[in-house]
């Protein structure tokens, strides 16, 4: 019935703008074909799999400013109306370190000194970079609803932006950790520069996991409730509140390798607490985890991302 209607009315009327065809023939389709901009697009059914990577990466790179700007804007909006404003970026991690220090001292009977506080601060801040990236990343797609439903762009920019956001929050904590180390009297040497590759590995791990959970949360919304607890357990299985040696003594040494963040924190402890280069095996273990998780997380995300809008 409805179809009859179409038949009756669908004869193509003579078009007044016949000159259109002459203009259309200059710009060959296919030459400049990519998914997001450019002049020619073809949209076809989604299949799990990777899009053509060259145009994808090009579009990703073109919009790098978007990821940076989004993280910056979110950071500014977060503490916009609090009395202390951006000072919270410094106060929150300090309070967190203090709470854990108190906890450990109370539970273990005050046997821990200022050295341990310095270790705790550095390790917690670095772990915080990881956990904040993951937590923010998990919500980046589900929480980015309107942007995703109304603009076509590589969705992976959203979890990337979450990692940038966490990194921006991490930066002001570096001087705090440094000051605490100086006050406590931990000697400073060249080995401290090795912190840079350690942070880089942390970012690799954080990006991989953030992309993974960002896509996963679209399918399982419970993840947002589960994730804080997972991250807390993750924190406890990382040698932050205790040392790697203590873990080995108690037969928990296997976690030092199963947990991607453990080698990172161990390397950090070596450079920051003891002024020596990290054990090569430990650091390379962390690097391997980092590269592996980054590649897997990013590929998982990209292979799913064109379908995400349908499920929001």
């Amino acid at each position: 019935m409805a179809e009859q209607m179409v038949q009756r009315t669908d004869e193509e009327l003579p078009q007044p703008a016949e000159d259109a065809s002459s203009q259309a023939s200059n710009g060959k389709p296919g030459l400049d074909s990519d998914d997001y901009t450019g002049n020619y697009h073809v949209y076809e059914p989604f299949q799990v799999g990777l899009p053509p990577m060259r145009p994808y990466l090009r579009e990703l790179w073109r919009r790098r400013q978007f990821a940076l700007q989004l993280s910056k804007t979110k950071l500014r909006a977060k503490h916009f109306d609090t009395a202390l404003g951006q000072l919270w970026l410094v106060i929150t991690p300090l309070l967190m370190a203090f709470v854990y220090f108190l906890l450990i001292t109370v539970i273990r009977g005050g046997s821990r000194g200022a050295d341990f506080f310095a270790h705790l601060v550095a390790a917690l801040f670095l772990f915080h970079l990881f956990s904040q990236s993951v937590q923010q990343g998990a919500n980046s797609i589900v929480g980015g609803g309107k942007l995703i439903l109304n603009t076509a762009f590589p969705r992976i920019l959203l979890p990337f932006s979450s990692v940038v956001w966490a990194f921006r929050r991490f930066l002001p904590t570096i001087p705090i950790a440094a000051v605490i180390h100086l006050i406590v009297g931990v000697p400073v040497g060249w080995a401290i520069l090795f912190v840079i590759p350690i942070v880089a590995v942390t970012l690799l791990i954080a990006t991989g996991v953030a992309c993974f959970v960002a896509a996963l949360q679209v399918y399982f919304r419970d993840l947002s409730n589960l994730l804080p607890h997972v991250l807390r357990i993750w924190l406890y299985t990382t040698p932050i509140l205790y040392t790697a040696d203590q873990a080995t003594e108690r037969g928990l040494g296997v976690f030092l390798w199963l947990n991607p963040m453990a080698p990172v924190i161990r390397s950090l402890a070596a450079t920051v607490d003891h002024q020596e280069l990290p054990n090569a095996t430990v650091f390379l273990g962390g690097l391997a985890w980092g590269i592996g998780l980054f590649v897997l997380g990013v590929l998982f995300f990209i292979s799913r991302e064109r379908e995400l809008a349908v499920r929001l």
Partner: protein
Amino acid sequence: MPSGSENGYSVDDGYSIVVDDVSVTYRTSVEGRPTLQNTIRRLGRRERIVREVEALKKVNFRIKRGHVYGVVGANGAGKSTLMRAVTGILPPTEGRIEVKGRVSTLLSLGIGFNKELTGRENVVLGGLAAGLTREEMADKYDEIVEFAELEDFMDMPMRTYSSGMYGRLAFAVAVCMDPDILVIDEALSVGDARFKKKSFERMKQLCDDDRTILLVTHAMGTVKKLCDRAMWLHKGEVVMKDRSKEVVKHYTRFLEVNEDDELTAEEL
């Protein structure tokens, strides 16, 4: 349906948009929100409850370059889904969409606006997400603000905006992106009469520049005045494609006759 009558056309024949047998199916679980708990429970019972919502069924149409094409239909007809499919936001479940030209969208929800952020931040983020550089965005920014007439409000969070201001800003962003193809979803209903007139003129101007506009609206007057041709969608299916006056005539009659949303040929 004139089977495959539209197949074989491509954007090379002077068309900006060619939509070929496109269906879009949303997959939603019955619970509304997909959760791990329910998935595990379902796996335990070895069942899969995925409700499929066919938002578009085998839709065909094409739009010549420089034309304004209207889409009308009741709520839930699939109009917004069609817009999203044409702009590449939703992949079609079946069929193929070919689009030639730079697309700028103005969809009913606004341009991904986050209400906690200021108007300025939203405009800049929207532009960057659409692929403009910071410099290009800076160039366009003043034009956008001027067109929207929101000079005094750009540094206020968008939750303080009225719906009219919201719509004006969204429209200004979309038309100032200098698109080859402008996709507009029900945005003309916001704004006062003067702004409506202004946006009319802007769209006319875009058409004169040989730009293509795909317009979704409930305002029949707008369709008659602006559109060359129009399509009437009902529950995901094309009921009619014709000159806009004809479509509006039939659609209006359908709306008057038909209160309970049931559609039969006799009533047309």
